[in-house]
């Protein structure tokens, strides 16, 4: 296989993104290394999913650049962007299976849309992809008949149907029972190594993500707070990183939402609350 010179599949430089009046990203720099699993972690609401959408070209940054395989995603036209997306796979949080098709047709969807392969070959490919995620036997079920974990695995089979170069996972572990969590962790690692993918995982499930990630970025308040391998992060001097990784309830991120002085609030009675409205 040809090895491209650039060791980074994705390069984000000084990227700013504003939604409404809220600054989501304020000068973010990150690199996704080829062949590795990179995790992007941070508390809910830090725009982790938004970052994936920016990489996939569904959103455009307000400043800075996002390069995927040497192409600046936010400057690409419709056709070039769609060409690039054929080489990207994305696993959505809820799977996002097409609800009017069964499992087989869902996995066959990208193949039928983008290739002119004969139906017999599509059948074999779909069954192989389903086999890889352990759901070959479920090919005729409808999405409504699947559990959350199964939906995600079918969506994963669909995402790898066109053999992408980069796989993006949006919160793959959220809301999974321990068994399907274990299955997903194993699958992500296996697929990455067996298919020679580059993977990006966006998550706040610390233990699972750390167990498979080769490199981790911690995001908070629109900035990269810390980055490194799992061990390097343990030695990080950032108080915030320590609080996040250890799951402490108080620290640089306070337990309380900013509020008036507690005693004054209590003594003021109803008047203050009503007049604030």
């Amino acid at each position, binding site marked *: 296989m040809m090895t491209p010179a650039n060791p980074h599949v994705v390069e984000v430089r000084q990227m700013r993104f504003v939604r409404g009046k809220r600054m989501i990203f304020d000068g973010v720099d990150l690199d996704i290394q080829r062949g590795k699993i990179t995790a992007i972690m941070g508390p809910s609401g830090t725009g982790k999913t938004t970052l994936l959408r920016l990489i*996939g070209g*569904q959103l455009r940054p307000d400043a800075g650049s996002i390069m995927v395989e040497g192409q600046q995603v936010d400057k690409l036209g419709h056709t070039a962007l*769609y*060409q690039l*997306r*054929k080489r*990207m*796979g*994305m696993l*959505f*949080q*809820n799977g*996002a*299976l*097409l*609800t009017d098709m069964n499992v087989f047709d869902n996995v066959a*969807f*990208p193949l039928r*849309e*983008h290739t002119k392969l004969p139906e017999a070959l599509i059948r074999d490919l779909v069954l192989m992809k389903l086999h890889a995620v352990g759901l070959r036997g479920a090919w005729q079920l409808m999405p409504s008949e699947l559990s959350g974990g199964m939906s995600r695995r079918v*969506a994963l089979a*669909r*995402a790898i149907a*066109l053999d992408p170069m980069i796989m993006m996972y949006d919160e793959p572990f959220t809301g999974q029972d321990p068994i399907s969590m274990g299955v997903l962790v194993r699958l992500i690692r296996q697929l990455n190594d067996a298919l020679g993918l580059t993977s990006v995982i966006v998550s706040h499930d610390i233990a699972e993500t750390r167990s498979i990630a080769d490199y981790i970025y911690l995001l908070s308040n629109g900035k990269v707070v810390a980055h490194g391998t799992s061990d390097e992060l343990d030695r990080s001097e950032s108080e915030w990183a320590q609080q996040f990784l250890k799951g402490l309830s108080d620290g640089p991120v306070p337990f309380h939402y900013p509020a008036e002085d507690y005693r004054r609030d209590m003594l003021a009675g109803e008047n203050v609350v009503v007049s604030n409205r």
Partner: protein
Amino acid sequence: MILSVIQNLGQKGLDFFQRLGRGHLLFVQILAGIPGLIPRFGLVIQQVFSVGVLSMVIIVVSGLFVGMVLGLQGYNTLVDFGAEESLGVVVSLSLVRELGPVVTALLFAGRAGSALTAEIGLMKATEQLSAMEMMAVDPVRRVLAPRFLAGFISMPLLAAIFSAVGVLGGYFVGVGLLGVDEGSYWSQMQAKVDLYNDIYNGVIKSLVFGIVVTWIALFEGSDAIPTSEGVSRATTRTVVHSSLAVLGLDFILTALMFGA
């Protein structure tokens, strides 16, 4: 206080024009996606089934009753002038020129338009449209364009069925119950209903309504706020806006076609 009212008003106006712009942009994108459907016409046929064929029951039943009411009302007016033989003309002209296209479009907005909006809105809310984009499949071309074309094809056909069933309804009441002469019911209709002036104009109306209702339904669906409340609001807006648009356009088209 006054300032905030003005500010609010300005914001509403801006929102309105932004939506209008997005709507027209979507319309152009849909039109651009139609040529790509020719090699994959199966997608359109599938939608003609769910948009058109499944609307048949309500169209046939309503057409029958509207025709029967026209027969009854027309007879009561005409009989005072001894002109009850012209009942066929009254029933058929009312249906072909006005009630066929208009009532069909209103029923279509309620039956198929709302279903389209809810379907697209939920596909958006469950990230299915987003997932398609990431699979490099343009949802406008794959999902919206076939539905648009299906609405465009189905509407005149449904209006024709509505009018035909309505004429039969008028016949059952007028000839069957009230004793109008059968020969004059049909022959006067044949003599007075003009292919170009009446039938073609009716077909043009229903084509216009087909475009407008389907466009509004698809736009509301794809512009819906992706929550259950957002989708429910979008569905309501589809029915309200497309019904108003149909009635308003009907006046304009009638004035252009039959006006002095």
